[in-house]
């Protein structure tokens, strides 16, 4: 026995190769050998292959054996994770279930197959792919499986009376079979379509499909189902009312059925079909004969699928013969068989599975929709997130801008505050500068006031003494000294007063408001004022003066009082300068002061200028940069406070945003130029 096994095992691969692995089934002898190998081998893949072969061998002959091997095949396929093999086993199990009339179970297995065959994963790593594709193409192998299962689903739905669904599945199968050009599948689908169209009484179409099927079968040299095709053709001719042709095909069918030992189902079908045909033709004896043969065949293969029709034939035949009792018995048997085949429960079961499937598909659809909506939601969320990010960035950006704005505003406020503080501290600083000057300028006259008054007290004491002693000459001298000293006291008192007044004038904030002012008139007024003021003080003073005005001069927005003070200062200085020179160089010298107004814009703007020019001694270069400092003066002590130019500088620069410059040449004279902008900047007080 072991020796034999070894030989079989050695022969096995070549035996497989020799076969058309896809649809050729083994002979009885081969089947016996395969059975021996199946029991002997430990190799799962070989067992799986043997199961496929034996399942095929038994599936139209012994359903119990077929189911056993299919289930074994399914178990191994699952263990080995061979998806396409699993699909195949499941499909064949479904076919066996269909053959035994268990439609619900059939549908259950078919749907498993559909799921597996639709999954591209099934194309991966297929063991012995030639079992499904001659060209060893995984895609074609899977397509073959799909085409097969759709065909079988069509068959199932045809059996349950849902012809429309059956047709739809058949055409699905046909489409795939045509695409991948699988002749075996083309044969099967055409055969099944022929049967369907025949039952739908579309007989010409049925005949065409059936002829096609026959052609494919012949070209393949595959005759297993030829009997079935012949029955279909015969039945079609019966329906067409062509009994002769029908008889020819019935004969073909019987011959095929008898020749093909292993397709008992086909033979049973032929007998059953012929019984029905003779029933139609009212030939009860023939009916009974064929029905008997059909029943025997069916009993051999444990299939009940066509039993109802066989019993029904018996019943009709006996009825025709007038044997009502027998007719009734067979009618009852038929009804029972029909019931067991398609009783309410089974149909319900089938419908449940159908419903489950639909439900499952709906679930899938729902999942798909859910998935899509999830994707959409995700996309939306993504979009929203992106928008949020953008919004956040924009928000942050604007916040930062706001922050920056606030910072800038804060910095601006601080700057303004600092500026105000600076102006204030500058005032304080200039006040500080003043303090030193004030100290000097006040302490000096005070020195005289204090000391001369003290001296006078002493002198007054001496005077009393001299008067008591009667020394009138001495007394007279003393009184003269006292008077002289009193004059000094008075003089220095006034000096101190003048200093304090000019100091106050300097430090006082201008309260005057800016008004459009005619500078020509203003210049004229102050030129005269200065000249007559000086003449009043010093009768010997005389100088030529001139006013040269620009008649086109527009009115300028200024504080007239302040500008007047500036003009007075500048003109006084000019007259003083020429008087100094007059005293030094009386001959060939004509002292002259000229005041000129003109339209002369500031750099980058419009403006006017007032020039005060003298032909005095000029300002020495070394003191030129000191002239605007407070208390700087070239005048003899007591004649100038040294505040005139510094005050003028403040009024023009700070008060009016203008400029004050000086041009001077030693021995030639000096010219002060005041320039005022026409459109004045906003003024700080």
């Amino acid at each position: 026995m072991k020796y034999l096994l070894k030989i079989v095992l050695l022969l096995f691969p070549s035996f497989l190769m020799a076969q058309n692995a896809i649809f050729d089934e083994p002979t009885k002898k081969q089947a016996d050998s395969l059975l021996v190998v199946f029991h002997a081998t430990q190799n799962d893949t070989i067992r799986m292959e043997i199961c496929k072969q034996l399942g095929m061998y038994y599936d139209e002959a012994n359903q119990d054996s077929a189911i056993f091997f299919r289930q074994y095949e399914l178990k191994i396929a699952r263990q080995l994770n061979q998806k396409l093999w699993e699909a195949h086993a499941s499909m064949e199990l479904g076919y066996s279930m269909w053959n035994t009339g268990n439609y619900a179970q059939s549908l259950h297995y078919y749907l498993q197959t559909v799921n597996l065959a639709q999954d591209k994963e099934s194309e991966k790593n297929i063991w012995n792919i030639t079992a499904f594709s001659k060209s060893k193409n995984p895609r074609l192998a899977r397509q073959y499986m799909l085409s097969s299962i759709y065909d079988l689903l069509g068959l199932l739905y045809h059996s349950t009376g849902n012809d429309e669904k059956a047709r739809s599945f058949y055409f699905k199968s046909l489409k795939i079979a045509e695409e991948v050009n699988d002749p075996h599948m083309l044969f099967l689908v055409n055969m099944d379509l022929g049967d369907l169209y025949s039952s739908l009484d579309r007989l010409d179409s049925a005949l065409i499909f059936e002829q096609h099927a026959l052609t494919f079968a012949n070209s393949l040299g595959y005759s297993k189902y030829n009997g079935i095709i012949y029955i279909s053709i015969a039945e079609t001719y019966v329906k067409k009312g062509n009994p002769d042709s029908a008889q020819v095909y019935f004969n073909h069918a019987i011959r095929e059925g008898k020749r093909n030992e292993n397709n008992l189902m086909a033979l049973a079908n032929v007998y059953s079909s012929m019984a029905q045909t003779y029933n139609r033709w009212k030939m009860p004896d023939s009916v009974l004969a064929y029905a008997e043969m059909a029943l025997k065949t069916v009993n051999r293969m444990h299939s009940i699928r066509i039993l109802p029709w066989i019993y029904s034939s018996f019943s009709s035949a006996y009825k025709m013969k007038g044997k009502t009792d027998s007719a009734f018995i067979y009618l009852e048997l038929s009804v029972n068989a029909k019931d067991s085949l398609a009783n309410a429960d089974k149909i319900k079961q089938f419908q449940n599975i159908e419903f489950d499937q639909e439900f499952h598909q709906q679930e899938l659809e729902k999942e798909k929709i859910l998935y899509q909506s999830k994707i959409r939601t995700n996309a939306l969320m993504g979009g929203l997130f992106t928008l949020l990010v953008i919004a956040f960035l924009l928000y942050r950006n604007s916040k930062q801008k706001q922050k920056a704005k606030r910072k800038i505003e804060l910095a601006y406020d601080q700057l303004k505050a600092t500026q105000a503080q600076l102006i204030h501290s500058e005032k304080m600083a200039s006040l500080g500068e003043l303090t030193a000057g004030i100290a000097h300028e006040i302490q000096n006259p005070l020195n005289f006031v204090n000391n001369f008054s003290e001296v006078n007290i002493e002198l007054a004491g001496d005077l009393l003494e001299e008067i008591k002693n009667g020394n009138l000459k001495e007394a007279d001298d003393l009184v003269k000294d006292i008077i002289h000293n009193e004059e000094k006291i008075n003089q220095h008192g006034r000096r101190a007063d003048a200093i304090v007044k000019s100091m106050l004038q300097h430090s006082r904030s201008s309260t005057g408001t800016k008004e459009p002012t005619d500078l020509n008139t203003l210049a004229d007024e102050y030129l005269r004022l200065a000249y007559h003021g000086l003449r009043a003080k010093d009768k010997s003073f005389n100088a030529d003066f001139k006013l040269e005005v620009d008649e086109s001069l527009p009115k300028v927005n200024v504080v007239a009082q302040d500008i007047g003070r500036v003009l007075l200062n500048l003109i006084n200085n000019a007259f003083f300068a020429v008087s100094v020179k007059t005293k030094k160089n009386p001959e060939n010298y004509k002292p002259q002061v000229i005041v000129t107004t003109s339209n002369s814009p500031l750099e980058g703007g419009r403006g006017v200028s007032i020039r005060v020019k003298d032909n005095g001694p000029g300002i020495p270069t070394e003191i030129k940069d000191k002239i605007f400092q407070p208390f700087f003066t070239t005048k003899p002590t007591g004649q100038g406070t040294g505040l005139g130019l510094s005050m003028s500088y403040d009024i023009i620069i700070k008060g009016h945003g203008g400029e004050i410059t000086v041009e001077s040449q030693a021995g030639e004279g000096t010219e002060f130029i005041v320039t005022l902008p026409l459109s004045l900047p906003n003024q700080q007080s």
Partner: protein
Amino acid sequence: MNILVVDDEKDIQPLFLQRFRKEIRNGELSFEFAYSGEDALNYLNGNLHEAVLILSDINMPGMSGLDLLDRIKQKHEVPPPFVMMITAYGDEENHKRAMALGADDFLTKPVDFNQLKEKIKTLI
């Protein structure tokens, strides 16, 4: 004792002459007046050893009292005359500078003549 008073305030002369009139009458003190630093130097150049005490204002046009002090202490005869600075600027800065340049004393305006007389007495 001959005293040179340097000040640009011309009224300083009648003031000193009247305040020290008894001392002048007694022949204890004699005064010379200069109204600028330059005048003072001129006098000193021409009247060597005449002035024993120099009283000088600081804030004067042209050569200031401090310049004058510097010249006297750096460039004049040994022993240098006694120099007392009198100023209306009674601030620390002027005081420090005057002392650094070698001033022997420092007075502020208005001048307290009683105090000045005491100081002069100690010198005689």
